[in-house]
């Protein structure tokens, strides 16, 4: 394939499009609420109405408002139908011809849609994730062509550097800097790895990208491989994402068929192959060194860094590892320029961020917003606030490594630095809204339980420390703890944070620390007022026999 073929593929796809189109969400969310049956029924209805040559029923990825699925969008009418059932097919088709059937129409003017900004998700809900032509019609692979034909690898690195893109996997490391390290390190072979392990509870951004627009990730990886000098790529996906894996496999096969992956891409000397590696569902395998060990077929446990993967990664070779969303940002940056990207967001955090909005909020789903948007805009305008007029109490970001931001800090802009200042992190994009009914100590216990179960067990502070912290939180929740237990908990938080080997242990205390910082009274409220005196048995209800301590001390 050369550039003319690419443009021809695009034009053919656009030319053969039918005038009307029903885009049916076929990402995992809507699929699980009967999306496939809705699509089948729509197709049948259209054939029955003799409209098959006028209406395309297109399988697309996530249409964002997952809580209202199955979703169907109608073009060019610009309508969104929610909670569509197979029986609604007749009404949907009638609506195409200006009928006004009984359908639950979504409000596309609602801030949920209007305040979003799509870069990573620009094709999500638009292209058919199982047809490469659909991606090419949306200018897919133009960026790769541009990079291969008109740029030196170092210019590609430079462009990504100037764009200000930072890693979307959690830590926010400057992507251009990482690429340049790998590019400058010499090795017999180099590798590009895409981290699609996405283990944070409640997070599904990466899954959505892979299910909705897998070609974009492949293109991003190919550009990265060209920039750093790699020839082999791996995508590490968790086994819990069967649909994403299936679509990736299809995408890789189709890209190879068209000569967009494999040997001599765009008839240049550049070769790049991609293979999928399936993880067995350990959260810690998202940590880069554990992930690489797992790709090599070893037990997935982290190792101390340095050496960083950029110097010594897969089989000791220089390896670039980036998150799904990081790679997904790359093609638009090359297509539209570093300056365009750097113009979005804040001083230090550029571009957009995808969040999986969940919890006690009216509208849950997938959102993409420019960096620096106040948290309040996200939860109150986009998310519509807590349901039934309840008060929002806190917003949790960063999953088990993050923290809870209290309601009075909602005006904080969402960027890497501001969230860290509040004791939380950007994380990979989970955002859980909590209302008045949420018990913050219980939240801390939940995340600690998660870290305890997911600790790989290699280093002592994390393996044994999380167990003890979890036990202390349970004790507090049962009303059996004293002030001394709370002090011990804080001591452990400090120790585990500072001495653990990898990010899991180093950040495991964060949910406790941040709830202690903003909701300390909820902890204090639960403490026993009296220290437990030695030799006095504790009753199951938390009280104890015998005289109060003051008297006991006298005897």
């Amino acid at each position, binding site marked *: 394939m050369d550039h003319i073929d690419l443009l021809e593929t695009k034009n053919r796809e656009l030319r053969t499009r039918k005038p009307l189109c029903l885009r049916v969400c076929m990402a995992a969310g809507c699929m699980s609420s009967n999306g496939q049956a809705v699509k089948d029924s729509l197709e049948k209805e259209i054939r029955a109405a003799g409209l098959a040559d006028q209406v395309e029923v297109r399988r697309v990825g996530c249409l964002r408002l997952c809580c209202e699925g199955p979703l169907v969008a109608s073009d060019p009418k610009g309508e969104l139908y929610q909670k569509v059932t197979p029986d609604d097919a007749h009404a949907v088709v009638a609506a195409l011809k200006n009928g006004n059937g009984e359908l639950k129409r979504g409000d596309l003017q609602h801030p949920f849609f209007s305040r979003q900004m799509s870069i990573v998700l620009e094709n999500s809900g638009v292209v058919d994730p199982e047809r490469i032509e659909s991606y090419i019609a949306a200018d897919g692979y133009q960026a790769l062509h541009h990079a291969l034909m008109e740029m030196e690898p170092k210019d590609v690195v430079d462009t990504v550097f100037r764009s200000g893109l930072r890693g979307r996997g959690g830590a926010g490391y400057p992507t251009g800097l990482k690429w340049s390290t790998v590019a400058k390190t010499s090795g017999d072979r180099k590798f590009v790895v895409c981290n699609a392990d996405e283990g944070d509870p409640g997070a599904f951004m990466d899954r959505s990208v892979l299910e909705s627009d897998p070609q974009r990730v492949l293109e991003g990886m190919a550009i990265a491989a060209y920039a750093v000098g790699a020839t082999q790529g791996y995508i590490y996906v968790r086994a819990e994402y069967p649909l994403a894996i299936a679509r990736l496999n299809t995408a890789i096969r189709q890209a190879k068929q068209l000569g967009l992956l494999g040997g001599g891409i765009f008839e240049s000397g550049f070769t790049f192959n991609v293979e999928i590696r399936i993880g067995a569902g*350990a959260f*810690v395998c998202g940590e880069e060194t554990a992930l690489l060990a797992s790709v090599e077929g070893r*037990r997935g446990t982290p*190792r*101390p860094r340095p050496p960083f993967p950029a110097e010594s990664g897969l089989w000791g070779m220089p390896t670039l590892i980036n998150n799904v969303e990081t790679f997904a940002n790359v093609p638009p940056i090359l297509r539209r320029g570093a300056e365009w990207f750097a113009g979005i967001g804040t001083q230090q955090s550029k571009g957009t961020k995808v969040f999986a909005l969940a919890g006690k909020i009216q509208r849950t789903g997938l959102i993409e917003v420019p960096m620096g948007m106040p948290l309040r805009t996200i939860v109150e305008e986009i998310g519509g606030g807590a349901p039934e007029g309840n008060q929002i109490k806190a917003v949790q970001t960063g999953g088990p490594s993050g923290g809870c931001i209290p309601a009075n800090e909602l005006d904080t802009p969402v960027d890497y630095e501001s969230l860290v200042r509040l004791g939380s992190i950007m994380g990979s994009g989970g955002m859980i809204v909590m209302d008045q009914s949420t018990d913050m100590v219980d939240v801390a216990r939940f995340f600690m339980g998660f870290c*305890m*179960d*997911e*600790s*790989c*067990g*290699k*280093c*002592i*502070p994390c*393996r*044994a*420390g*999380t*167990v*003890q912290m979890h*036990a202390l939180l349970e004790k507090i929740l049962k009303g059996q703890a004293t002030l001394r237990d709370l002090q*011990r908990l804080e*001591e*452990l938080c400090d*120790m585990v944070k*500072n*001495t*653990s*080997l990898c990010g899991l242990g180093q950040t495991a205390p964060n949910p406790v620390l941040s709830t202690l910082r903003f909701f300390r009274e909820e902890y204090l409220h639960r403490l026993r007022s009296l220290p437990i005196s030695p030799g006095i048995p504790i009753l199951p209800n938390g009280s104890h026999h015998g005289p109060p301590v003051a008297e006991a001390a006298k005897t």
Partner: protein
Amino acid sequence: MAAKTLTIDGRLISAAEDQTVLQAAKDAGIQIPTLCHLEGLSDIGACRLCVVEVAGSNKLLPACVTRIAEGMQVRTDTERLRHYRRMVLELLFAERNHVCAVCVANGHCELQALALALGMDHVRFEYRFPKYSVDITHHSFGIDHNRCILCTRCVRVCWYIEGAGTKNVAGRGAECRIITDLNQSWGTSETCTSCGKCVQACPTGALFKRGSAVAEMERDRTRLEFIVNAREKKQWIV
């Protein structure tokens, strides 16, 4: 190999550039507590006892896997480090069932020795008292998981020195345990060469030679009769 100069605990020392902080300190006669480190095995930085403070780094660094650098300023024995190290030991003692009085390694145990050396005289955390089994199916050796601290020295010595690859780690978090082959009893292992290196590498009494454990001594009373007969009847053959 170029030499580099650095200060450890205020002392100016020189070390080869490929040395770790742990090696450099040891050469200079400065002891840093270790547990997962064993001379001759590759280091994994897992026990975190050897963490040191390095000027300019906001993180504590494990001395066993940190390379020295020119002008590095290392502190190995601050109050903060001592505090963390004691906590590591407390966590270990609370994690499984370490009862020195009935342990084969009593008096020869690195965990016990470290607790003494670092002044860890009591444990402030709740003992977990997990239920672990003992595997004595092997003809010469046994493993008591109650005393295992998961340092993986046995695994490394088995893989990288003996080359047998019999020992491994299974499970996650607190559920981790050392296994034999595909998680089978040691006696049924077809890869174990019975070299005994794992027993020698173990810092505690988790791996032991059979016959040496508490209550394993069996009397052979026929020996008494033999001696009496020999002495009184001059009868040397039974």
